[in-house]
């Protein structure tokens, strides 16, 4: 079985983002970029499945500018067998990303596609579900446990009410939650080895991806700011501050 893993290049989660003064977007020049943390978890899961003998190839896919090759190289260093960059100028919105991934799925015929539950830049949490719909296959979102059993997968999902378990037939789309696993660190020799692994580049034209029906993205603005409040010395002062506000 082949596993396809989606890897999005995003602003590192430790960076405090800044808006462009004209509100046209977020400043990314000179800012640390990384693999979306949920996608690292997706890749780790795929690698563990391969290492357990239940898969024989892990393919990492990214959609974006040529710079996303860096994140794909990291994915190869972590252990992916090969990588595909689908070059697109604009930041692909989830519907477009899902249409592109559908084309890749048609070419690659994976048994599993693992994505992050959300990209931490746009926080959309849509792409996996959309791919599953277009492909007409099951989705198991927000996975915190994944067990493969021949032609099916049993997935535990983190939902608002607790932990839900579902069973899906393969091929299927899985999206990862934070507690699925802890991704491995990349070792130096693996970075060297990764340089020799194949990284192919495809264009939207080659894939004949349907476009359209995008959201038009307008102004970016800072969120309403919460002001720093008062500091109290001790518990009695805390209680009176709460009482003053009529909160007790």
């Amino acid at each position, binding site marked *: 079985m082949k596993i396809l893993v989606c890897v999005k290049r995003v602003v590192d989660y430790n960076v405090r983002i800044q808006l462009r003064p004209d509100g046209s977007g*977020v400043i990314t020049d000179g800012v640390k970029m990384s693999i979306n943390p949920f996608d690292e978890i997706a890749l780790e899961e795929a690698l563990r499945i391969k290492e357990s003998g239940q898969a024989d190839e892990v393919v990492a896919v990214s959609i974006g500018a040529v710079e996303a090759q860096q994140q794909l190289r990291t994915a190869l260093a972590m252990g992916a067998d090969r990588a595909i960059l689908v070059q697109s100028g604009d930041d692909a919105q989830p519907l477009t990303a899902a249409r592109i991934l559908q084309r890749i799925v048609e070419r690659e015929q994976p048994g599993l596609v693992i994505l992050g539950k959300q990209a931490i830049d746009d926080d959309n949490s849509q792409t996996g579900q*959309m791919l*599953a*719909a277009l492909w007409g296959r099951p989705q198991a979102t927000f996975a915190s446990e994944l067990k493969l059993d021949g032609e099916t997968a049993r997935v535990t999902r983190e939902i608002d*009410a607790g932990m839900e378990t579902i069973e899906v037939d393969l091929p299927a789309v899985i999206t990862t939650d934070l507690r699925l696993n802890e991704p491995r660190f990349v070792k130096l020799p693996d970075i060297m080895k990764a340089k020799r692994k194949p990284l192919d580049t495809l264009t939207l034209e080659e894939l004949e991806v349907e476009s359209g029906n995008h959201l038009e993205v*307008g102004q970016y603005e800072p969120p309403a700011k919460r002001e720093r*409040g008062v500091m109290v010395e001790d*518990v009695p002062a805390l209680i009176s501050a*709460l009482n003053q506000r009529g909160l007790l």
Partner: protein
Amino acid sequence: MSRILIIAEHDGTRLNPSTAKCVTCARDLGGEIDIAVFAEDPAALAAQAAELDGVAKVLTAVQQGSGHLLAAVLAPQIAAAAGDYGYVLGPATTFGKDLMPRVAALLGVAQVSDVMAVTGPHSFKRPIYAGSAIVTVTAPADMTVVATVRIASYQAVGTGGAAAVEALNVSCDTPEHTRYVGLEASAGDRPDLQSAPRVVSGGRALGSAENFELIYKLADRLGAGVGASRAAVDAGFVPNDMQVGQTGKIIAPELYFAIGISGAIQHLTGIKDAGTIVAINKDADAPIFEVADIGLVGDLFQVVPELEQALAES
């Protein structure tokens, strides 16, 4: 005027408060509002939905099987019903987040996630980068808008309505490739984290599941729901459904206690709309104090029992 369809969220017997909040958002769009209830036994749920103010019609669709709602099963039914509507809304809870993008893709349209404000017939504000920025997006005017509503941004509509209840007739194949196995709900008779007016949350500093008792005791004294940081969940002190933040629950209680929580941006995004934030932390420089309305620097293992005791006596 365009018609709006809201997908009800429920647990089989009770309508989730997220549905009444979606109605508030829908009212900002203007138009006739219908609610669709998909359930094994929808009658009682439909009656609850029919009471919500401003609802024109409640549509019920009986679901086979365990009664647990699977996105793969619901989405084609909703997509089939969507033709009559300008908008299809669901809550930005795990239920809606799982479901609505699947609906949108079947309709071939983009989806708007986490609507926090309606700014025009097809324009919405939504948070990105863990709430560090707000962006305005506009959906194509000639297509159905599929969106999830950030429930912390809206109050629930009142009750007192008496909408008509009708059966929803859609015919489509329901897939069998996805099967419900079970739900491990965290036992608890404490107030629901997402709708409780008071919430007490604990972080990594609690150190163990046993020590988290301090948080439960204080919460019970206040009649509050209980939350946690990701670090506390990852460390196994509490179950996952208590996580507050970017990748957990987004909440808006009147009163929020952050105890032994540093205030990482991913946590803060979950409490931006809280009324009053109280922070208890032994580090005076912890970022949580930058957003707290009331801050107390101290050791939680002293402060929390003392606070609980004082509340008990007052």
